[in-house]
């Protein structure tokens, strides 16, 4: 049974050789990276806004239960129903029960990573309900029967040629690999789904405690249709999505879209509050909010708590050199990329977590890009400490580092090790370079040469250099 790291290694090898994936990733990540940089460049007080957004999130996480209680009160006060779900199974059961009780047959969904996390679609389909994803990217991966590979761009790993093939299969005729035409076809198809759906399931980008408002940001308006047209709206939210007040929303809207896609705001920002009230024309008959824990509470008070501030914008994925080469599926987790590595250590609860802390170069581009300055590198180091403390790291590797520690803490051992290392490498030197190394170290020489250890190290040369020709 391979470890999470071994599985990642295998998948990453395949990913690096997958030319379709490489094309798709190159196109998408470079576009999103540039867009993000431009988006923030146009914000005169970007630093102040990020600081403010972070402060609000910090305060919210520090008083999470207080704000969740207020949220529940506000939602109920607006005529909605609140359900508390401890884990994935409970969340699924709540939604299934609602669908059955309300005589639902078909369901439309707007994009929700929380629902992906609990594999909600599979549970609903197994129970006989028809579920259609209405976010274009989610619709694509739904047809492809794959999980999303990016937090906000689920089909980022697909080229337009691959998408045309998928859509053509559903359409029953050949559709061209042209984004405008493909989108137009999907739009017409999804319109039919919106009209006939009994239930709309959404996530929540933000849930405002003060008013009970659920906020959705979409570029397609599907958030609006999903929460307005069907007679029942169910919002599934990760418990950390609550924010204190409506006045807190603007700063998040400013930094969220710029981080995610470089837009000043997403095309649609949908604020919904409870079901349709007397005198209103649009809106569902019923509104249900499912507040989901699923391992989040266990992060409180740990070194990973800061990751609960995440806005799920995906910008850390876009700037990550590792994600940029392997894509989302290689991680094997619902949430991929830098923040995905962190949250996968608690989401899903005990027995479902994994530690991929090693799958990073610690370049810190993620921290640099994060709109709420989440210190992902700090947490990655913490995860590596956990992995080695729990002996999740191969024994040989632990011994090698323990030995390195002894050597580096002693001047004489260091000098001996250098001399020994020089001798050990000598048989491998050809034309002044080490071209191949045995065992695990062969990973280096497969792609790179290595210089031999210098005949005279700097320290050994210093005796001669100490006499300064420039002095006096």
């Amino acid at each position, binding site marked *: 049974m391979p470890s999470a790291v071994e599985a990642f290694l295998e998948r990453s090898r395949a990913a690096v050789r997958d030319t379709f994936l490489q094309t798709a990733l190159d196109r998408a990540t470079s576009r999103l990276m540039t867009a993000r940089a431009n988006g923030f460049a146009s914000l005169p007080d970007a630093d102040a806004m990020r600081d403010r957004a972070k402060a609000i999130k910090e305060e919210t996480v520090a008083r999470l239960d207080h704000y969740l209680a207020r949220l529940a009160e506000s939602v109920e006060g607006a005529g909605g129903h609140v359900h508390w779900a401890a884990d994935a199974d409970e969340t699924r059961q709540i939604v299934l029960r609602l669908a059955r009780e309300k005589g639902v047959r078909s369901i439309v969904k707007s994009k929700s990573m929380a629902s992906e996390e609990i594999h909600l679609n599979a549970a609903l389909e197994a129970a006989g309900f028809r579920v259609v994803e209405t976010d274009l990217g989610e619709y694509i991966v739904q047809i492809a029967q794959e999980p999303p590979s990016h937090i906000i761009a689920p089909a980022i790993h697909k080229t337009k040629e691959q998408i045309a093939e998928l859509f053509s299969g559903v359409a029953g005729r050949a559709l061209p690999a042209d984004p405008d035409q493909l989108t137009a076809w999907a739009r017409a198809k999804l319109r039919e789904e919106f009209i006939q759906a009994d239930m709309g399931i959404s996530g929540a980008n933000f849930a405002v405690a003060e008013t009970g408002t659920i906020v959705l940001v979409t570029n397609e308006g599907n958030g609006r249709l999903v929460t307005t047209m069907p007679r029942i709206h169910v919002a599934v939210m990760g418990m950390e999505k609550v924010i204190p007040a409506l006045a807190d929303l603007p700063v998040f809207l400013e930094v969220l879209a710029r981080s995610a896609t470089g837009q000043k705001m997403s095309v649609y920002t949908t604020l919904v509050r409870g079901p349709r009230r007397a005198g209103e024309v649009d809106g569902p008959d019923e509104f249900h909010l499912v507040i989901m824990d699923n391992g989040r509470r266990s992060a409180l008070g740990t070194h990973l708590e800061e990751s609960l501030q995440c806005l799920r914008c995906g910008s850390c994925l876009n700037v990550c050199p590792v994600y940029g080469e392997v894509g989302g599926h290689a991680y094997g987790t619902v949430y991929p990329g830098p923040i995905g590595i962190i949250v996968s250590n608690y989401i899903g609860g005990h027995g479902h977590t994994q530690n991929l802390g090693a799958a990073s170069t610690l*370049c810190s581009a993620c921290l640099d890009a994060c709109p709420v300055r989440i210190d992902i590198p700090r947490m990655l180091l913490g995860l*590596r400490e956990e992995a080695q403390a729990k002996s999740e790291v191969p024994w040989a590797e632990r011994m090698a580092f323990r030995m390195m520690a002894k050597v580096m803490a002693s001047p004489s051992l260091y000098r001996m090790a250098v001399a020994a290392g020089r001798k050990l490498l000598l048989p491998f030197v050809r034309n002044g370079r080490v071209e191949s190394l045995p065992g695990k170290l062969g990973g280096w020489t497969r792609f790179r040469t290595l210089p031999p250890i210098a005949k005279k190290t700097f320290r050994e040369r*210093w005796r001669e250099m100490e006499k300064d020709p420039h002095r006096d």
Partner: protein
Amino acid sequence: MDPTGAINREPGTANSGPRPRSVALFGTCLMDMFFPEVGEAMVKLLRRYGCRVTYPMDQTCCGLPLLNNGYREEAARVARANIPLFEDAEAIVVPSGSCGWMLKKEFPGLFPADAALRARAEAFAAKVYEFSQFLVEVLKVTEVDSGFHGTVTYHDSCHLLRGLGVATAPRTLLKMVRRATLVEMAGSDHCCGFGGSFAVKFPEVSNAILGQKLANAQAGGAHVVVANDAGCILHMRGGAERSAPGLRVMHLAEVLAAD
């Protein structure tokens, strides 16, 4: 000028105090073993700019590989062995951004339970400068007498750029080299793919990231990539020798000290 657009950088450590007369070199284990000529170039330059250079002979390593792989206590032990060697130093200069970051930003935090040692680590950290930072901000170098000629591009190593906030100093110095033409590469601030043990644990991904970096370097028309980090150099030079033989990878000190 901020060519990278990186928003989260800290400002460089501007030195307003008196110029130190002597400078202690924290060589780093990689320079000691693999790139002693870089150390020689640094010493030559520091002396040329009027500094007396010392090199505590019992120094070993900054301990970053240990910290980065989750061996925090072991890293603390290595730090504890090296800090006393530099207690008398006025300034500590280091050739690599990642080691510089370790010494300056991480050393104090390695001793949460020992206030006295933490204080010594903080005093140590306050004196640490990366090489280009020292030349520009402390020595206020305005001229470089280098025989180097060619088209160069500069790689912003991750810990130097995002950890220590240094981006301008290396470029300022390169622009002082009369017969060097500095061109910026796309993604100069992108990771080269080294990542320490990452390079050996995930060699294919590491190499794929490197491929992008080398391609970017060459696309700009440069024949030389300059970096201020032994890890990046080990990785980029090693890779270039296999896949981009026309591209040289050099440390800034080598360029500046060239005859």
